[in-house]
């Protein structure tokens, strides 16, 4: 093989490969990552614990959304890359009712059938500076009365009928977040490692900033 035919063949091969790459590049470019806040987006019930495993297993068919009775399952519609068309739940808009239909319908192992009490979507975290009963600014108890798990997950503080505290049985379905009437947004679903009581102070913020990497 002389040099000219080698260069010709090489160019042809590279051209064909780049043409094959083209649709994937187009698909990726059409889906720029939105800079929207993802802080209140939580995984589905029964989802694989590791987010990376979930992205590997999910084929983006949308069946989970199509069976969801409260229509709480949303999809990454405009985000590119690995999360394209994978589902999430935003409990501020609409929360999971733990009916388990999405786990049953999922064709892959992205969602596996899990007992309601063993679901781990996150954990509720209460900001005691923003919750009205905690600052003696009113009486409420909405989160405690809506909780589908019961007193094992969220209950009133001992000796007080209105101050809610989150316990270890919380599965993170987010119904308390949806029902919370207070505009100060005192309750959120967070990763279990972050704890059930929101921490305040300069030091904490520094740590969080460090985790985000800037």
């Amino acid at each position, binding site marked *: 093989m002389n040099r000219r035919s080698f260069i010709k063949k090489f160019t042809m091969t590279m051209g*064909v490969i780049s043409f094959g790459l083209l649709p994937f590049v*187009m698909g990726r470019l059409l889906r720029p990552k939105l800079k929207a806040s993802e802080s209140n987006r939580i995984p589905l019930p029964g989802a694989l614990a590791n987010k990376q495993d979930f992205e590997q297993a999910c*084929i983006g*068919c949308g069946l989970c959304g199509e069976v969801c009775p*409260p229509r709480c399952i949303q999809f990454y519609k405009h985000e590119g890359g690995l999360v394209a068309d994978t589902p999430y739940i935003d409990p501020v808009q609409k929360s999971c009712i733990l009916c388990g239909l999405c786990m049953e*319908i999922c*064709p892959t192992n992205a969602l596996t059938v899990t007992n309601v009490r063993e679901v781990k979507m996150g954990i509720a975290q209460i900001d005691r500076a923003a919750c009205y009963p905690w600052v003696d600014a009113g009486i409420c108890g909405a989160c405690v009365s809506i909780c589908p798990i019961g007193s094992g997950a969220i209950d009133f503080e001992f000796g007080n009928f209105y101050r809610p505290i989150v316990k270890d049985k919380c599965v993170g379905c987010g119904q308390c977040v949806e029902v919370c009437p207070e505009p100060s947004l005192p309750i959120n679903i967070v990763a279990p490692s972050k704890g059930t009581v929101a921490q305040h102070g300069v030091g904490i913020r520094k740590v969080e900033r460090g985790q985000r990497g800037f």
Partner: protein
Amino acid sequence: MNNKLLTSKYLRHLNKLRWFSLSFIFIMLIILPFIHLYQTYEAAHAYDLLTPTEKMISDTVERLTSSFVKEPEELSAIKGNTWSGSLFGLKLSDPLAVLGQVAASQSLYWPFIITALIPLIFTLLLGRIYCGWICPATLIYELNDNLAAWLRKAGLPVSRRKLDRRIKYVVLAVGILLSIFFGAVMFGSIYPPAIIGREIYYAIALGGFGAGAVFFLLTLLFDLMVTRRGFCRYVCPGGALYSLLGRYRLIRIKRNVETCNDCAKCNVACQFGLDPLNDNFGMECNNCTACIAVCPTDALKFTVNVHDITYQGPGHLGHKYRNEKN
């Protein structure tokens, strides 16, 4: 297999049946999100709180479905789209979805792989049957091709250049490699039937198209401006997979030389740019039966044959054959 069935003169009506199948599946993809909306309204017991539009949707779906089912929950029997769906408890998935998921997760999850078994068997027997008879994108692409024909008639330049059809196998290979490398099913965002199934659901139930819709419009433009049915023929990774699986398909179209008159209508009708006149169907034929429907002498029939049919010479009713004989 009944040979009479494969060579019946009624085969030319199969194309109408195919159009019915394509339209039925597309209409189902539109109805299913509305059924889901209706189910969510019923589940919430919130008819009085609905807006007038939502009330209209609820009433219409109820009227349409009340003769089939008693409870709205029973409507869950049919869910999903052609990428992956559930049909009366039977879960079906696209073989490309399974291939992509196995590549991405690098593990075999058998309950999911089994869902692709029935489509796989049909593909092994009938070739790219999915592309011609089921794919919701095919309906739009064929309508787009008719539009191209009209534009051509109106005098607008519609390009019909030829590319290398092996490009789609490169797309398939690149997709598998990207899935392995990034750890996500990359086919889902460029595979038109998956995009359509999803985007219709997004548009109806979740209030707005996603980014996939733009990609699909671009493929329509590609078909219109660059090459006829270009995405299916040259780019689609699913088409590549089915072509490979259907390489030794059992049932294929065969030209009957005795009744062929070399009119070449089949070559014009074939949107995949294949060459039925010269017995050159190859791997890409999707058994869409469009050539059977246009054949004026009913010379094209089905046959049971594992191998490609070699060129049989010019049709016996044509000029070329008579000239050769004299």
